[in-house]
């Protein structure tokens, strides 16, 4: 029993892992114990032998290269989570919840609003998005609408037709960038036009 007690500590002594007091105690014991001295010598040799044996297993160079290349390639593609992303995600989540709520809370009525966008035909836009030809849905004439910067398509309400008619009469209005002052029914993407102002795209001149 006593021998086992010392033997376990001999290893800690050899590995330099004992507290100073234990280290001294083991050292003193070894000096007077031939069995422990022999065992310590054996363990030392075994440790050296194992250390030498370690290198019998080595990664083949081609395997190492392959692994490193794969890791570099996949790590570039892999999304790395960072704490800052948590904030961004939280903000997106709040918006995702808040925006629909906001829309739901809006009264179902027209609200005064200005909107910028490009004059278009709503049916042509839908047809194009669906992979069809412009004009497929509106063979009897274009349905005036507006597409804003985010790609949302608004129909133009025809209850104020007179003002709209005036605008319609202008040549080449399709595709023009405009600002519409009027009212919007957000839930239906419907715009009533009070005034239309054509926006001039400024270009740099030499």
């Amino acid at each position, binding site marked *: 029993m006593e021998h086992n007690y010392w033997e*376990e500590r001999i290893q800690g002594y050899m590995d330099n892992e004992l507290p100073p007091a234990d280290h001294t105690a083991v050292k003193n014991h070894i000096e007077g114990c031939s069995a422990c001295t022999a065992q310590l*010598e054996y363990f030392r040799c075994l440790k*050296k032998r194992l250390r030498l*044996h370690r290198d019998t297993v080595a990664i083949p160079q081609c395997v190492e290269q392959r692994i490193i290349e794969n890791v570099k390639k996949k790590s570039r593609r892999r999304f790395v989570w960072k704490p800052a992303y948590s904030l961004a995600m939280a903000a997106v989540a709040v918006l995702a919840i808040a925006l629909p709520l906001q829309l739901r809370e809006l009264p179902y009525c027209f609200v005064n609003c200005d909107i910028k966008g490009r004059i278009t035909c709503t049916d042509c836009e839908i047809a194009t998005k669906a992979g069809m030809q412009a004009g497929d849905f509106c063979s009897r004439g274009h349905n005036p609408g507006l597409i804003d910067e985010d790609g949302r398509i608004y129909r133009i309400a025809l209850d104020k037709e007179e003002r709209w008619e005036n605008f319609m009469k202008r040549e080449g209005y399709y595709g023009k960038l405009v600002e519409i002052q009027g009212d919007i029914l957000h839930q239906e993407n419907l715009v009533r036009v009070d005034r239309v102002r054509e926006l001039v795209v400024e270009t740099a001149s030499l």
Partner: protein
Amino acid sequence: MEEFYESILPLTNNLYRYAYRLARNERDAEDLVQDTLLRAYTKFDQYQSGTSPLAWLLVIQRSIFINKYRKKKREGHSVSLDDAASGVDRIMPTDHRDLPAQPDDFLFREVIDAELKEALEKLPKHYLEVILLVDMEEMSYRDTADVLNIPTGTVMSRLHRARKILQGQLQDLARKKGIVKSKVRPLYPAEEGPMKGGTQYGT
């Protein structure tokens, strides 16, 4: 991520050595190392600068290894990662007179690498691991304890038993070669049967 490439990738060989000893085949070892490096990349912000990067990597690698082992076991595959301990009659010498007179001569001249490899493979995994980490990778008891998620005292006792079992197996070899003639006592009485090791992976 330059820091990752500079501090982690040079340890690929250490990872491979450990993976190979656990998995015992090149293909699993390669997969294990690659999975470890990829996971280390995604978790690199959790690595505490100044601590041992090898210990940190080995914690990851060991976790992946254990999960794969469990998964394969659940799926009923024959697992190449299984422990080779069962059926091996391990011996643990207690009499110092069994020791060779010149241990360095014996260990460096008489014991060839293939024999040492075989002796290591016969060790239960939880004993093999402390040998791999402390004796081969020269890690401290504390880092080893962190990797294996056990107390430092357990590292010390496992290491003691692991070395003694290894010593016993090599003594047995010495006896067969006629270098040592005295008999050594079995580690466990015959009726208890062979020691089964590495069960911690399956539980």
